[in-house]
């Protein structure tokens, strides 16, 4: 691993990441042992329903987990070339407000939030905010940075960027705002772009535009994308690899084709069956997953999915937690149905 970073090496490896929250009422294990790799020029999808820990995972990578949460254990390894071979930085060990992580955050790793309205300042023009980001990370003058910001806005498909740059976030439509957000995330040429539900607040036709934009940008800039979403349709359209999470645990991960056409974990299977599909026969009942997602304080013992699982094995699933097992090339699943430890 001391050789220069090859295309086949992951640029970001998360290993056994545990991020817990410690409110007064008890401990919430928001992320409980997540491991995955991110490759350059590839899109990794992290899917799951609310409370599965997908957003906290993203925030952990950038070290912006809010109190009372913190990373309890695990490592987040960022690989980069430093002339004399590859260097590995463990983001999990850094001081969350130190200069190192602040250099990486917004620089090497960009972030696109779900709600572009709340992530821009309402009292500053969007241009100023992009210029600020650029000048924070690059030694350029104000005018140069502004020129760059206009170019960026143009590259994400905002019409008349010279004029738009002086507008406030509320003057832009949802789609344009998300484009501006992406422009800001790209301003320092990140190697990894984390997009947390980038299209959830948007209409379908706008969503299609933004997904197209992300794909084209990836082709052009060659960055890795971590796409966090609950929408399996978006995952199928965008991702190369998928991580499925449930209550803080990775239940299954693998290439996108395997996840959609040969899912192994009962949760993945049930989730795929239960989504309303545009190809379905009209007015038919959908297969459902029994029950609902448990409250984080009432986390079930053993496999967190066992109370809702159709393949529940008493005495096994509720006794201990399964670990990720390799079931096929590149595909891992954490379920006692597939060999147990």
């Amino acid at each position, binding site marked *: 691993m001391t050789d220069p970073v090859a295309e086949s090496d992951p640029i970001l490896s998360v290993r056994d990441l545990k991020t817990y929250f410690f409110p007064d009422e008890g401990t919430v294990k928001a992320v409980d042992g997540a491991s995955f790799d991110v490759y350059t020029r590839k899109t990794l999808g992290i899917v799951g*329903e*609310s409370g599965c820990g997908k957003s906290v995972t993203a925030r952990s990578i950038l070290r912006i987990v809010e109190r009372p949460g913190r990373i309890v254990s695990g490592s987040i390894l960022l690989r980069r070339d430093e002339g004399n071979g590859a260097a590995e930085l463990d983001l999990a060990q850094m001081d969350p407000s130190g200069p190192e992580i602040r250099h990486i955050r917004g620089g090497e790793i960009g972030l696109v939030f779900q709600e572009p309205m709340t992530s821009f300042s309402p009292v500053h023009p969007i241009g100023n905010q992009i210029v600020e980001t650029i000048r924070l990370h690059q030694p350029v003058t104000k005018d140069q940075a502004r020129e760059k910001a206009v170019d960026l806005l143009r590259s994400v498909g905002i019409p008349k960027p010279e004029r738009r740059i002086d507008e406030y976030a509320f003057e832009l*439509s*949802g*789609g*344009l705002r998300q484009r501006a957000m992406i422009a800001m995330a790209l301003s320092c040429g990140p190697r990894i772009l984390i997009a947390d539900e980038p299209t959830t607040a948007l*209409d*379908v*036709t*706008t*969503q*299609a*535009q933004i*997904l*197209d934009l992300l794909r084209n940008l990836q082709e052009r800039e060659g960055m890795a994308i971590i796409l966090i979403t*609950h*929408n*399996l*349709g*978006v*995952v*199928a*359209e965008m*991702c190369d690899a998928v991580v499925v999470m449930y209550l803080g645990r990775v239940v299954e991960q693998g290439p*996108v*084709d395997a996840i*959609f*056409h040969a899912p192994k974990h009962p949760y993945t*299977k*049930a*989730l*795929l*069956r*239960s*989504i*309303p*599909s*545009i*190809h*379905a*026969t*009209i*007015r*038919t*009942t*959908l*297969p*459902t*997953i*029994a*029950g*609902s*997602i448990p*409250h984080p304080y009432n986390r079930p013992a053993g496999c967190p999915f066992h*109370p*809702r*699982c*159709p393949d*529940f094995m008493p005495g096994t699933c509720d006794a201990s937690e399964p670990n990720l097992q390799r079931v096929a090339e590149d595909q891992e699943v954490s379920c006692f149905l597939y060999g147990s430890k």
Partner: protein
Amino acid sequence: MMGSAERLLDVKGLQKFFPIRRGILQREVGRVRAVDNVNFYVEKGETLSLVGESGCGKTTTSRCILRAISPTAGEILFRTGDGTVVDVATLSKPQLRPLRRQMQMIFQDPFSSLNPRRTLLDIVAEPLVANNVGTRQEQLDRVAELLRLVGLRPEYMRRYPHAFSGGQRQRIGIARALALNPSLIVADEPVSALDVSVQAQILNLMLALQSQLDLTYLFVAHDLSVVKHVSDRIAVMYVGQIVEMAGTQQLFTAPKHPYTEALLSAVPKPDPRLRTQRIVLEGEVADSANPPSGCYFHPRCRYAVDVCRTETPRLEEIQPGHFVSCHRANELCLKGVGESRSSGRPPVGRTTGPRGGADGGGA
């Protein structure tokens, strides 16, 4: 679905404009044409869905029908329980009161639509109390019956909404809507705030209740996959107008309006092998305060010709039950969405799991 069924709701020429006021004198400088000449009907026992993107006027239309807001113009003819037809649009508040028992609403957000300081009993019994229906004991029994109907345990009725998950709260909202035996239910995005695994439960519940209680739904949604599961007919709206209305099957397999085609194409399909060429619409939804000339969709339409820029198309019935508002409806051959994948789905075996479907298992 039903050929000669009577129309429960008949909306004719509905308009709702919101004034734009500027300056100290609050002079009217323009109008947002939120709903502009909308015509449709809903037959008894069927589900009509209004779909479209944000700002298309679908929610405003549904709110006009319930008279949560008063329309600017148009008729909303509603057939009451005793068979008389009344125009909801012109009734005064006291006249509306008895009608409100017959049309109820299911809200989008199950978190903000339930009062956190009142118990389930208070919430579900409220329509009964407000309308003086039955004695206290009868109300209690009715609430228990309603909770059972929506898959919740009656023992929960003394609890507060915070003890329930999103899906369970939506069930509470449905129970409240059903309390007075309404004939029409307006459901405004009833599942869009829910997790996917819970969406299916609520959609199934709504379908089951419809056949059990002979309900008529006006379903407002933006998600075409959800709409497909519940609708008999669909009306697609764009900038305050209905651009296409047809039976669900017809609309999905053979859309006639370019906007419908683009909408269908834009929905991300949950199958990586179907990464086909999507139609990505350029630009933005037109401003309903300042709509473009001619057909409102022409600046984004890939089939637009000269006539589209100058003349406004009318909603016309090009096949029985299939209404389109497009100059080129008869010459275009548009691509719909088939049912190819449904047969390729894994067999649906033990899907409801050991607990038997409803999420009333634990609170």
